[in-house]
């Protein structure tokens, strides 16, 4: 670029910014050539382009007015960054419990409203399919569908386990998706696993990977994760290893190299909020467990029933096994709850004996507790998993509001209003409070204990949520000698279930095994055990697995914090 007079040293670099403009001037800048005139239409178009670029764009969420809840600012900010700065391909890596699902939902709703996500696929662990559907439909007004149903532009929600196998796999992979959301996306990280191969075969313009653990033991984890949303951002695998090392993250003295540069690169596609930086404060959870001694008749009835379940469970088909599991769970709630089902499957003697046990010991303890709480002026939410138990309690607790999923919508509203304004006690099945504000209550009693700890977590979440101003007091009633007692022992002793931060439980359960299902595992252990002592030993082993998973989780969290910065501008 010879020119008559020299530009200052260093300005030549800056002039490279003008290379295309200089080229457009025409004929270079030397003598004898011809210059192009300014094109008035181009000038106008450029002025408009500047305005378009500076318009609020995704800063203004078109979908927010239609939402059925108010997202937090940091969630909107995350969605905004993912849409604008990351162009719809991002890793949402908030710490557990901060609402990655909400952030993904915001992005999905916005893209759909703008006509950009007509074909959306959500891949999630099997246990969370229902939860995803509920969240998308209830909070975002986004219709969902599952394989086999008429899609009709609804968001297809599939479990990872089903999606990675045929026939679903071969249905999903040829499609050209607008948006794919992968929940617990660390499960698809490994390229050689079936899940990893699936995600690499799917095609989508926008991709959201949700995980609280984008990196665990190996730095390579991060590379694989980032490469899914932005292939090449971190270079080739060899370049990445050369730049940052290969040692396992936990190796003392062999920390990754160039961590600052790596953090800056990952921040181009990754958003991570931590509790310390968002103003979302949750109250404490205070849990107490009351082990209730059943009466002799109750104890014998339960022993006879579970012995029969165990005996038949070993030889029966899987469908019948499901019924047996259901019977065992019902029996843990109350004999009255189990009786109708027992009659239905032909266990008439046990049904008859159960129906006579109308005043189980747990009810007496519950009434005692309710008396104490209500005298102290507290409102109490009592949960049971079963309608039969609910009906039993309705007779025992006069004046209580009663809620269950079969009530008409208006009646549900009235029941919640009655609990808020008049009744001291709300007796409810699991459906209570879904999408409703129950923060005026902070005392909860579990009349029975779900075997699935996520269900326990969801119950707690009805009260232990943002906006709750009091510490949440949880009372678990569990009869001695029951399967529930063993379940509770493991969850309390091994992973401190009730002290966990919201969302951590899911992290821990997910680490035990890719397809770990606590409820099934418990029932399998129960059936496989010769007696209660062996069942106890098997449960202890399950507890050890959970404890290890928790230790792994805590260790990986530290690694992530070191490698992944919060939203640093790209």
């Amino acid at each position, binding site marked *: 670029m010879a020119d008559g007079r020299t530009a200052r040293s260093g300005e030549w670099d800056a002039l490279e910014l003008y290379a295309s403009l200089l080229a457009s001037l025409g004929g270079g800048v030397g003598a004898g050539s011809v210059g192009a005139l300014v094109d008035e239409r181009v000038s106008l178009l450029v002025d408009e382009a500047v305005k378009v*670029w500076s318009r609020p*764009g995704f800063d203004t969420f078109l979908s927010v007015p239609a939402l059925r809840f108010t997202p937090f600012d940091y969630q909107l900010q995350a969605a905004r960054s993912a849409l604008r700065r990351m162009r719809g391909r991002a890793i949402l890596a908030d710490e557990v419990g901060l609402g990655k699902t909400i952030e993904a939902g915001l992005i999905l709703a916005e893209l759909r409203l703008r006509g950009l996500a007509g074909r959306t696929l959500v891949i999630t662990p099997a246990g969370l399919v229902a939860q995803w559907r509920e969240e998308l439909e209830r909070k975002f007004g986004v219709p969902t569908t599952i394989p086999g149903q008429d899609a009709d532009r609804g968001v297809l929600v599939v479990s990872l386990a089903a999606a990675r196998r045929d026939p679903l796999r071969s249905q999903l992979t040829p499609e050209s998706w607008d948006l794919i959301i992968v929940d617990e996306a660390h499960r698809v990280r490994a390229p050689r696993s079936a899940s990893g191969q699936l995600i690499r075969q799917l095609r989508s313009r926008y991709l959201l990977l949700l995980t609280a653990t984008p990196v665990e033991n190996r730095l390579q984890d991060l590379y694989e994760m980032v490469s899914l949303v932005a292939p090449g951002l971190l270079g080739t695998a060899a370049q990445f290893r050369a730049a940052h090392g290969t040692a396992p993250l936990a190796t003392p003295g062999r920390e990754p190299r160039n961590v600052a540069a790596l953090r800056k690169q990952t921040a181009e596609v990754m958003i991570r909020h931590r509790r310390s930086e968002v103003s979302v404060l949750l109250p404490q959870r205070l849990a107490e467990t009351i082990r209730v001694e059943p009466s002799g008749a109750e104890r014998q009835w339960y022993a006879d029933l579970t012995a029969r379940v165990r005996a038949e469970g070993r030889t029966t088909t899987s469908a019948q096994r499901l019924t047996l599991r259901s019977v065992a769970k019902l029996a843990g709630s109350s004999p009255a709850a189990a009786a109708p089902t027992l009659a239905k499957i032909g266990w008439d003697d046990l049904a008859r004996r159960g129906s006579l046990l109308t005043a189980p010991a747990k009810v007496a303890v519950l009434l005692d507790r309710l008396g104490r709480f209500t005298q102290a002026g507290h409102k109490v939410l009592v949960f049971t998993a079963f309608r039969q138990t609910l009906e039993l309690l309705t007779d025992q607790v006069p004046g209580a509001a009663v809620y269950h999923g079969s009530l008409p919508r208006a009646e549900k509203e009235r029941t919640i209003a009655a609990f808020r304004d008049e009744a001291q006690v709300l007796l409810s099945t699991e459906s209570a409070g879904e999408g409703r504000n129950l923060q005026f209550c902070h005392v909860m009693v579990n009349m029975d204990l779900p075997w699935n700890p996520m269900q326990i977590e969801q119950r707690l979440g009805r009260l232990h949520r943002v906006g709750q101003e009091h510490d949440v007091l949880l009372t678990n009633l569990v009869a001695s000698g029951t399967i529930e007692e063993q379940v509770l022992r493991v969850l309390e002793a091994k992973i401190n279930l009730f002290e966990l931060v919201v969302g951590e439980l899911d992290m821990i359960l997910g680490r035990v095994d890719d397809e770990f299902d606590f409820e099934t595992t418990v029932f399998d252990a129960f059936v496989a055990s010769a007696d209660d002592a062996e069942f106890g030993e098997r449960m202890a082993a399950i507890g050890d697995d959970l404890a290890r998973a928790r230790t792994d989780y805590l260790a990986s969290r530290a690694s992530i914090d070191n490698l992944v910065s919060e939203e640093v501008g790209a």
Partner: protein
Amino acid sequence: MIADPALEFWLRHVAADGGLWELAGDSAYVVLPGQLRDAYRLPEELQVTADPDVAREEGATLLTAGHPVLAEAADRVLVAGDAGYLVLDRPAAVPPGRDVLQAEVREAFPADHGRIDLSGEPAFVLHPVVRVGALVTYELSAEDRFQEEAERWVDVPSRRELPAALARSLSKALCTERNVVPPAENLLPAIGHAHRLMDSASVSRRAVLSAEVSGGFEAERGRAAAYYADTIAGIERRLVASTPDRALVLRERLRATREEQARRLAEIAEKYEARHVIRPYRLHVLLVPALRVAADVLRGSRRYPMSFDWLLPAGVYAPVRCPSCLAEAALVAGKEKLGCEVCLPPKPPTAAAAKPAAGIPASAAGKPAPVKPAVTKPPAAPPAAAPKPSQRRAVPPKVRGPQQKARPALTRR
């Protein structure tokens, strides 16, 4: 009717790139040329609208503010940029006579120890001026991004920034020339200077903006510090009353939390590190009709020849630099050369000269003449009003509010 400016822009952009469109109520039917079809991953024919209801009911593609396709189109247009020459019209009014030109040159360029006399007849020339427009993106934190438009007008021969009034005046000048022109020379130093001016102003502006978000930094840092203090205190409390087995776990947790605390506080500081990026999108070379007057700067019998350009549309002289050292300072007619206050600084006062004789001006008594202010002016505030495009004028610079919400820096994809 398309009421959305962003969609209107997109339709014009499509048309400029060879596409077709026609209105259909609140939407438009569009036929995209191949290159745009590929670029935007859209079908060849589509119906677009800015109305969400129309999009839902008619199945039209909703293209409204924030749609990535609109952003991509804006990016595409800005990447191509707006560059070219503008030859301003010679004013119809009779040009000033020699006496006026001489008086004006003496007024505009006072030469210490000297006097300027015109030495020849004015000649008509086209005097080049560059106008550079850019987007400056300020990143003050991960969340705080501001984008502002910046514009600089620089005189090509002297590489001096034009005063705001002169830039405004030129931007209003009519421009009807349609013939192609030979390119101006010596553009690069002028463009480089314009860029340097923008960069320097951006550094100052960034400092001001950073100060505005420092509250956010303090708040976030304070929040994190309080959070960790509370967490650590909680673990320490539990540690006191814990069993040995539990204590092991808690001590490990305490150590991890303290490490996390240190990391987070460092990251927060890093996050608020400010920066700015300049992205040029406009380069206009204005060829301004001018009268070039030859002149001599006289000091006694010494004559230092020089020339000055009278810019006809603005009625002022174009700025000049010191012919000896190229500084932007007032001229000084020295005994051996024509220089300026930089290369020919005034001599320090002597003791004798410090006490002037009564009734004699200081300069006449040997005291150095008071130093005149350098001609360099602070970065000019850009003119405010923009002429209508149909007048085909050089568009004036724009002023944008300092708090304008940021957009991501434009990048070539």
